[in-house]
């Protein structure tokens, strides 16, 4: 009976306690608070640490898993042209890239589109949030804003180069951004240049480091902005501006080409202008994970097209960047810039911008500006590091252009789709009809059956067109 009495009291007491606020007001009883493991927007731009975390969040999202800027930009453009090839049975996901027949409902082009726009959203949020924020330390404020501008331009750079005209979204307000139609490529470039110009005025030449990683170049600095500007001017064929921007990076004295080629892609590489730090525990870089088998004698999944090794001069030390293995009597050559397949130790970072590319940019710009000796000089800097003799007989612009193509191909293979983008922007060396691009020349030789000029652009993902009818599909796709 004692027990029952106790029970009555307990059961009886609870509802009365619960009923009390019913009379006084129920809001307390319905207040689920804020989620334990989440932050809510208004707080973010009031504190230094949260605002910084919001920028770190962009780098994290980029590196969280395999995605546009973590592997995809190397793999799929590479497979699309004469760079990469699957080693054995073709994975279903790679197939359409090998035949340059992408359906508009392809999951990978959807993923690349959607992830990139989600980074842009994060950048827009930062730009909007930081613009009015007055409780953030000014130096940090500028640094963060500069990074946001850079990352936005960086994202748009890859979007326009893959999809052509893309909606230029600069706001987080979905009621405005949901119906924006495709913006002409040139206007998007204008915005990128604007963003980068803004960023270079905000950022210092030094890198943001932490005591844990004192030498890491994993946050955007002013020279990274310059380096991307150099590339964009090059793509825009603003040769003088490109050469000037590249010069500023090269002459800053912060970067130098690693003489030991196995050092180039390490976390402490001195030629790195910007690297993204791996966050996944599973692998160092997506490229390393993709190209290097776990087993030292294992067969790689993706290999290099034969032509790359074929065109490499015998003395080229960059052969160290190719891994050759013989499995069941068959030889496989795969990219070996990154050496590590798995997660620990954390010794390789995702190389985003590096000095060698700046030399290539300057060389190309100088060729176009008709400064052939200076251009050859830049190429020779890279060749010297690769253990090769200086170029001779570069007497005409045509030859110089061929030399630049050769050098860019040998230096930048299996990195961020450089080859694919270069082929798309270069005119054909012997155009059979006007406007023909280098890509048509190469691909008509490589895949005569399937290549179509319209394949230079990926289709706009069909679901995006469904949800924003203002978008119009690229030519050659339905």
């Amino acid at each position, binding site marked *: 009976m004692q027990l*029952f009495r106790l*029970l*009555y009291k307990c*059961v*009886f007491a*609870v*509802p009365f306690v*619960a*009923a009390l606020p*019913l009379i006084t007001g*129920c809001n307390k*009883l*319905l*207040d*689920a*608070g*804020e*989620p334990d*493991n*989440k*932050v*809510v*927007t208004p707080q*973010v731009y009031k504190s230094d640490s949260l605002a*910084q*975390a*919001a*920028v*770190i*969040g*962009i*780098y*994290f*999202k980029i590196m969280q898993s395999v995605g546009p800027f973590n592997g995809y930009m190397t793999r799929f453009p590479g497979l699309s042209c004469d760079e990469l090839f699957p080693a054995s049975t073709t994975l*279903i996901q790679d*197939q359409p890239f090998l035949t340059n027949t992408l359906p508009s409902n392809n999951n990978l082009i959807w993923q690349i589109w959607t992830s990139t*726009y*989600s980074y842009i959203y994060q950048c*827009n949020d930062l730009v909007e949030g930081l613009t009015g924020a007055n409780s953030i330390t000014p130096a940090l404020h500028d640094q963060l804003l500069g990074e946001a501008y850079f990352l936005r331009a960086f994202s748009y750079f890859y979007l326009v180069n893959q999809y052509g005209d893309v*909606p230029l*979204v600069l706001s987080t307000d979905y009621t405005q951004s*949901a119906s924006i139609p495709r913006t002409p490529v040139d206007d998007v470039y204008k915005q990128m240049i604007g963003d980068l110009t803004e960023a270079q005025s905000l950022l210092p030449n030094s890198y943001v*480091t932490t005591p*844990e*990683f004192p030498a890491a170049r994993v*946050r955007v600095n002013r020279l990274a902005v310059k380096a991307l500007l150099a590339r964009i001017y090059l793509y825009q064929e603003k040769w003088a501006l490109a050469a000037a921007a590249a010069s500023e990076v090269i002459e800053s004295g912060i970067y130098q080409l690693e003489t030991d080629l196995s050092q180039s892609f390490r976390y402490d590489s001195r030629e790195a202008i910007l690297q993204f730090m791996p*966050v996944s*525990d*599973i*692998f160092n870089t997506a490229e390393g994970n993709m190209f290097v*088998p*776990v087993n030292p004698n294992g067969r790689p999944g993706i290999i290099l097209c034969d032509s790359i090794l074929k065109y490499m001069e015998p003395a080229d030390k960059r052969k160290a960047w190719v891994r050759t293995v013989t499995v069941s009597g068959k030889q496989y050559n795969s990219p070996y810039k990154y050496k590590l397949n*798995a*997660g*620990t130790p954390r010794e390789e970072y995702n190389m985003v911008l590096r000095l060698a590319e700046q030399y290539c940019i300057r060389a190309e710009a100088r060729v176009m500006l008709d400064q052939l000796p200076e251009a050859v000089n830049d190429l020779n800097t890279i060749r010297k590091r690769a253990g090769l003799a200086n170029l001779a007989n570069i007497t005409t612009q045509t030859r110089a252009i061929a030399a630049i193509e050769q050098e860019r191909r040998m230096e930048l293979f299996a990195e961020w789709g450089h080859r694919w983008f270069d082929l798309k922007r270069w005119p054909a060396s012997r155009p059979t009809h006007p406007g023909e691009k280098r890509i048509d020349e190469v691909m008509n030789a490589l895949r005569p059956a399937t290549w179509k000029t319209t394949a230079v652009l990926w289709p706009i*993902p069909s679901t995006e067109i*469904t*949800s*924003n*009818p203002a978008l119009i599909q690229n030519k050659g796709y339905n």
Partner: protein
Amino acid sequence: MKKVLGYLVMVCCISIARGQDGDPVVPEHTLEKVIKILKSKGVIKAVVVDKKYMKLAVPVYVPLQPVNDSLLPRIFADQPFLTYSLIANHLSITPKSKAEIEASRAYFEYRIRGFVLNDSANPLPGASVQLRSGRYGVPTKSGGDFNIVWTIDDTLEVSYVGYKTVQIPWRSSHKPLVIRLELQDPNMEVAVVKGYSSKEKGSTANVSQVKVAPVPNGDVLRIIQENVSGILAPPSSGLAGATHRFQFRGPTSLGAVSELNYRPSSSPLFVVNGIPWAPALRPVNQLTTMVGEPQAPGSAATGFDPFFTINPLDIETITVLKDAEATAIYGARGANGVILITTKKGTSKEPRLTVSVSYGAGKSLPTMQLMNTSQYLAMRREAFKNDNITPTAANAPDLLLWDTTRYFDATKFLLNGTANNLNEHFSFSQGDSLFQFLLNGGFGSQTSVLPSNIYGKRWSLLSDFSYRSKNRKIKTGLSAYVSVAENKWLTENVMYATLLAPNAPELTDGAGHLIWEENGGSFRNPLGYFLKNDYITTSNTLLHAYLQYKIFRKLRFETAVGFQQIHAEEKSKIPSSAFDPASDPTGSYGEASNRFTTFMVEPGLHYTDSLWQQIQVQAVLGAFWSSQLNDQWSQTYSGYTNDELLGIPSAANGSEYKSDKSKYLFLSTFGRLKLNYRNKYFLSLTLRRDGSSRFGPADRYANFGAIGAGWIFWERNNKNGANSYAKFRASYGSTGNDQIGDYAYLNTWNTASRPYQGLYGIYPAGLANPYYQWEITRKLEAGLELRINDNFNTTITGYRNRSRNQIITYLLPYQTGFGDIARNFPAIIQNTGVEVDASFKKSWGNFSWSSKLTLAIPQNKLLRFDDLENSSYSNKLMIGKPTNIIIGQHFTGVDSATGLFTVADPNEKLANKLDPVFFGGLRNTFRYKQVELTTYFEFRQQKAPHYLSDFYNSNNNNLPAGQINNDLSSNQPAELENRWRKSGDEATWQKVSTRNAGPVQNAINNWVNSDARLVNASYLRLKNVQLGYTFPDKFCRNRHIKGTSMYVSADNLFTITPLKGADPELQVPFSLPLQRNITIGLQVTL
């Protein structure tokens, strides 16, 4: 096991005690005795009478003086039902004709006095005393006494809220009646606490109640589907513990485009022992298993269903609340209906222990017929020929590297086993009028037909006690349910391995090692699937306590508190040995935990009264508060190079951790008023105000209400007490839906799971809309109930539910940063339909037959969707059509010249309905003496996607005909034999090709997007047959047991369906098929 429920059966106990002295005392004799006296005095010589008529006699009060002929008219004048004739001293007694009874009605009317006492023998004022056919009633006065004119043929009905109703057939009595009322079954009172109306005559609500059979078939959801019209709960797999798909009067919510066909938020509210079931119908596991992806949208999410932790043998009743009037009490969460599950309760009986054991074995139902080796090879060669490609070792290892004479039937290999199930259960209960106690315990295990040790096991313990104080002021009880389920599954759907090329190599070598290639042609060994194991351990703890306190006569305070925790823990082990060693595999290991914790409090005040002695009033004022916490995390370790070390974190090469926590609070206050005028007219009103933490602070609260009315417009009573009536009822009301996920109104940021440069980043979780509001469903319903002599019972219900202010996950282009946003949208979905529940029972001597039919004809329609054409839903929805459709073109067959699928007009838009046209079940029970035979047929008229659409949507390992993938899972259904081969062929299926791009591949879209994709999947299935034998009482008595029975039961014996290739219930070809089970069982009560 035969507990009598208070809801339906009003068995009464009438005790007639000697009352106070009243009318003049006259000695009382029975008619038989009087006749005996007359015989002995020689007044009559012989009596001619049928014994059965003597039962109609009433006592004789006539003074037996003088003893002569003149007595007889006086005696029979007082007999209401009998008359006599006297011929030559021979007395013949016959029953009166109807007309005679009618003529003498007035004479037999008399005023009777009586007293109504409560269960503790105290006078009960305010009780209703009514004549059933006369519809005239009086209430008892302060001393519990009443005074009423009682007519012959009429039945006196005494009722009082909370007590069992007593019926007394007409009798001639010169003494006052003393009627003692008994309290209703304790369960009934708990039901009243929750406020819903039970299935009683006076109810205005549509409530279906299922008393779970002593030997239930299958799981909780199957029991619901088999007994309640309008509910469809097909399993998603033949695997024990897998989630069900569920539909209850059609979808009310649209949800995101991607989830449209899955109705993510149209799940009803499940309440188990008073506590909202937190996971609803979503799987509780987080890691991918052989039944599917638990994180997928809506009901595409398939995984472990926590209802598996509930033993059906522990369930007493399942109550399904359908219309607005019934669901109003659950207001804001009742938009999709409410299903209440109540576990068993103690009874007020002598101690009894029931032990039941059953054992069964099952074989897989047939699946699709695949090609044999010669058909397969011919198809592959033809595909190469069609493409003008020469087969090479790289693109045709099956043709060039492997033995082309071999035949391996992978389907047979995988599904040829026998599944076993074992169930052991005991139940002990004891009680008296004050204290009742129950203890149940059970163990069950089920295995699968696969050649691997796949199982689901469950241990359960249920304890319930209730107590009532002697002064009847307080009643309290507590029930505790604790169960643990342990399931061993695989991490991947092994059914895809049925597609292995039929000339694949042997699976193992002589030493038992797995083989992965032959002559350089590698394939995925089906045995590899069985090395990838997934263990799910789910515990379920459910505590529910209630208290009722009678403040004064008419007012009662009641409260209930509940606590529940469902905790699912998972371990998945994928060793590197499960893969081809040449592919450089590593092992991985995953752990996950998902915990739901629910608290709830439900206080209420209940008032009962009668107004002007005509109208019974019940009023409830109550509140409900609940808090649901969900805490989940998962960690996956990958890169194990040594299988021995699998599971040791430090041996992994990397790991990923994910976690999520959320809180959901719900508060409501409600009032309900029920009026009953002379047991003929009924009215009920409910009003409530609900708040949910899932909405922004400005839109948290909303008001809901319902009104219901009932009218018994025809009623008859038989002499033997059987009741016939016809009732009309109607209800209208609004309910809400807040199934939109927690915190969706907040602009939240997630924290990065790993640091970047030593710092933890944050990133936006999604676009937020702080202004969305409740989704509202207005329900209109009318029903007709007809009951004839307790033999035939039918309810026909028509309803129209309109759900508006749809919270849709409005699809946005990803250029906004995210793909969707939750917002209210002026779209209206209408669900109309007719439901029929009919039952019939009759017995002829030792033979009895009962039959029960459930039938539902639902119709779902999108009434309004503004600017549908320009919205992201334009390819998925059509105004005026059901929401669950496939929009496509008219299929025009295979072009005999090109061999490709064609459609009439590629821009045509035809809506092809996926939901059933009608469905239901028919249960028949035949009983002869001790033997009982039950059959249950299930039927459904519907269309379903052709099973080949699973091949053509090649998301998985299955591929369009002619192609091969990495795993060499490239076999095709034998049905493709009827394919186009050469120009001029009239074929059903188009030509085969090895290419995954090009005209053949493009033409597949013609078929997939056409009406040919949907085929007739109607079926009639003998779901269950059960033959039982109950041992005779004598047999049991001799062995000192209270009862024993045994049965044989068979599931899925036969199916009639035009559907080929997939089960019409499951509809998908690649889920583990259902089984044909035979179970034998024994039940002993000690």
